[in-house]
């Protein structure tokens, strides 16, 4: 693309072309990020409304779909309040690492075979590293606010994120081992199109590793049942108790951005990413060269959004863990099991270098049964509920 820009504007120096190109990418990514975080906040509130048998925001725009714009505008207009006793520099600085940590991950997310801002060869290492930035911001926010509740929130969050990074990294390592690469694109290409070719179903250890990855990622994003840093009934609002206006919004951008990151990483690492079958690709190619990529983006988004919706549903169903239970879960269950999975994957790869196809089929079948049970359960609840229901399929 840079060459193309140079052919359009021949007088332009090369570095300017580079700068323009990167600027375009940055603007696109940030736009995508805010366009995700905004509407998903509306979506979450609507889904929460349905779960709680109320309506949710439905006034601003059709079905309240631009409620997030109104909220954002309101937050822009709020007074930017910094407490008198706060560490002012740190207080101002704190939202940015949180925001940045989540946004930086977007750079390496492969939306399709072509649509990736930077295909770094140590992509997953970069992802884990930039995810770690979030904790710095939260800890800084908790400390700089000079508020005891914020301090507790910051401390909790630091403990939580540091402990949950270990199971995440170890479960990601199983994938790295199976694919033999750290680059996200090659991880996707190492998997196949169909479910039984995905890493998650390749053998039981990978399956467990995926579950560990998902639980730890939810904890890393501090969503319920792991939302201890901002536990409103215990710590008022946790680390963001003193924040208002736009700075507060940055934290929430990061929270909802995290949702998508979790889904996208799960899709990339375990669920085959953007891959579509060759038949579908040829059919799409007959309509134009761009269409296979459109299909790939759609496939990737579907895989990512399943997890986004699942996490939203979990948030409005489950209560919150206690601090020591949270630590127990990480250190006594998730980390040892993740290590066992790593070891098991090693053994499996040595014993069955080409994989065992019927194990994959069995795992796919088990997952299908779980999904069918889940759907049946939802409908069972809908049928036998005595609550006054008003179900509309368009929310």
């Amino acid at each position, binding site marked *: 693309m840079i060459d193309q820009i140079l052919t359009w504007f021949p007088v332009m120096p090369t570095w300017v072309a580079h700068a323009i190109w990167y600027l375009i990418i940055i603007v696109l990514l940030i736009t995508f990020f805010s366009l995700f975080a905004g509407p998903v906040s509306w979506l979450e509130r609507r889904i929460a409304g349905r779960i*709680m048998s109320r309506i949710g925001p439905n006034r601003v725009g059709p079905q309240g779909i631009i409620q997030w714009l109104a909220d954002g505008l309101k937050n822009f207009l709020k007074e930017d309040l910094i407490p008198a006793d706060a560490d002012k520099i740190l207080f101002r600085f704190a939202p940015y690492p949180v925001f940045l940590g989540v946004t930086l991950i977007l750079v390496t997310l492969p939306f399709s075979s072509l649509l990736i801002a930077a295909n770094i060869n140590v992509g997953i290492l970069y992802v884990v590293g930039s995810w770690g930035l979030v904790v710095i911001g939260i800890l800084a926010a908790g400390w700089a606010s000079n508020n*005891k509740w914020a301090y507790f929130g910051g401390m909790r969050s630091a403990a939580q994120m540091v402990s949950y990074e270990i199971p995440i990294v170890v479960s990601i390592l199983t994938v790295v081992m199976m694919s033999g690469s750290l680059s996200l694109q090659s991880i996707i290409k190492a998997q196949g199109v169909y479910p039984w070719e995905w890493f998650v179903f390749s053998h039981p250890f990978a399956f467990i590793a995926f579950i560990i990855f998902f639980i730890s990622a939810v904890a890393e994003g501090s969503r*319920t049942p792991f939302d201890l840093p901002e536990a409103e009934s215990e710590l008022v609002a946790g680390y963001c108790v003193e924040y208002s206006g736009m700075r507060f919004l940055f934290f929430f951008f990061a929270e909802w951005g995290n949702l998508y990151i979790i889904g996208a990483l799960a899709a990339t690492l375990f669920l085959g990413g953007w891959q579509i079958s060759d038949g579908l690709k040829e059919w799409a190619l007959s309509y134009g060269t761009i269409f296979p990529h459109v299909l790939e983006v759609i496939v990737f988004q579907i895989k990512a959004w399943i997890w986004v919706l699942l996490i939203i549903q979990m948030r*409005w169903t*489950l*209560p919150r863990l206690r*601090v*020591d239970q949270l630590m127990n879960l990480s250190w006594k269950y998730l980390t040892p099991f993740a290590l066992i999975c790593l070891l098991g994957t090693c053994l499996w790869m040595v014993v069955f270098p080409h994989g065992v196809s019927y194990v994959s089929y069995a795992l796919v079948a088990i997952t299908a049964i779980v999904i069918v049970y889940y759907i049946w359960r939802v409908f069972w609840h809908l049928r036998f509920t005595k*609550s006054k229901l008003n179900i509309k399929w368009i929310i």
Partner: protein
Amino acid sequence: MGNIRTEEITLSMGPQHPATHGVLRLIVKTDGEVLHEAKSDMGYLHRGMEKVSEKVGYTGFQPYTDRIDYVCAMTCNQAYSTAVEKLAGIEVPERAEYLRVIASELNRISSHLIMIGVYSMDIGAFTPFIHGLRERETVNDLLEMLCGARLTYNYARIGGVSSDMPPNFKDKCIEFLDHFEPIVDELNRLISFNKIYIERLANIGVVSREDAVSYNLVGPNLRASGVNFDARKNLPYSVYPKLDFNVPVGKGKMGTPGDCFDRYWMRICEMLESCKIVRQALKQIPDGEIMAKVSRKIRPPAGEVYTRCESSRGDIGFYIVSDGSDKPYRLKIRTGSFSAMSIIEKMAPGMMIADLVSFFSSLDIVAPEVDR
């Protein structure tokens, strides 16, 4: 590591804090997340009700009783009017007694729904709270049919009740009960038997039988610790002796008897028992007057009286001393929330902050009932 100097943090939990549900304050000393001490500080909602009663007279004080415990105002109404009736020797028509029982039990259901919802909200689950409030709306509709108000009812009056039930009340009430009993199962499926919820509640804040008695816990909190005492059974008043119901006692459903889960579970069981009582009362209710002949100014003979009624937060007692005039010489209200506050200081050391929130909520303290 031994040389690191650690300091206690003094936290002021409240008067504005999401977990205190009202203007209460806990002065908490913690070492990290572990509590060393929690002292309750109250008085933020003191309105001088007992003094007010000495100025406004017996009839005038009736609406004030709503404000003692606005979550379960019916039983406060009932307890106060029972006390005055006993003092003045007023015979209440039986229909009025039944109406009082129906209203109080419906109010008990709505109060327990709030407790269950708020408790699960404190534990971090929001949905049961909204579901509880949704069901409470129907109870409020029913009580509105009875007396026209949805929160501060002023329904039980000295000598009877303010108005008879409208003709379609019985059907509506049965309809609600038929709808509500399965809802309890739904709530159980949604939250009560959730693994995380049980982990947060079971074996937390275990109040022993002896402590529960010596710290004067009452109502569901007392029964959760294994003491089978219910004013409706043990000190029968109104028409409760004619009604058949069980008193649930804590047996350690998910952990130890007297833990937070037992206190929570008592509320779930009591809601079902209340449904049973309302059904029976609706079947048995006789026709007749709803108000005894009471003079406008009540002048009870000189003397004193103490009555205990079972409110949803336990015993509510009214001690009235009369000097023969139309105003009480002294009126003392004894409430369950006030005595429940005292046990926090005993139980708190060694708990975590999250446990304190769980324990505090399980006692079901309503702020205006503490201070009056």
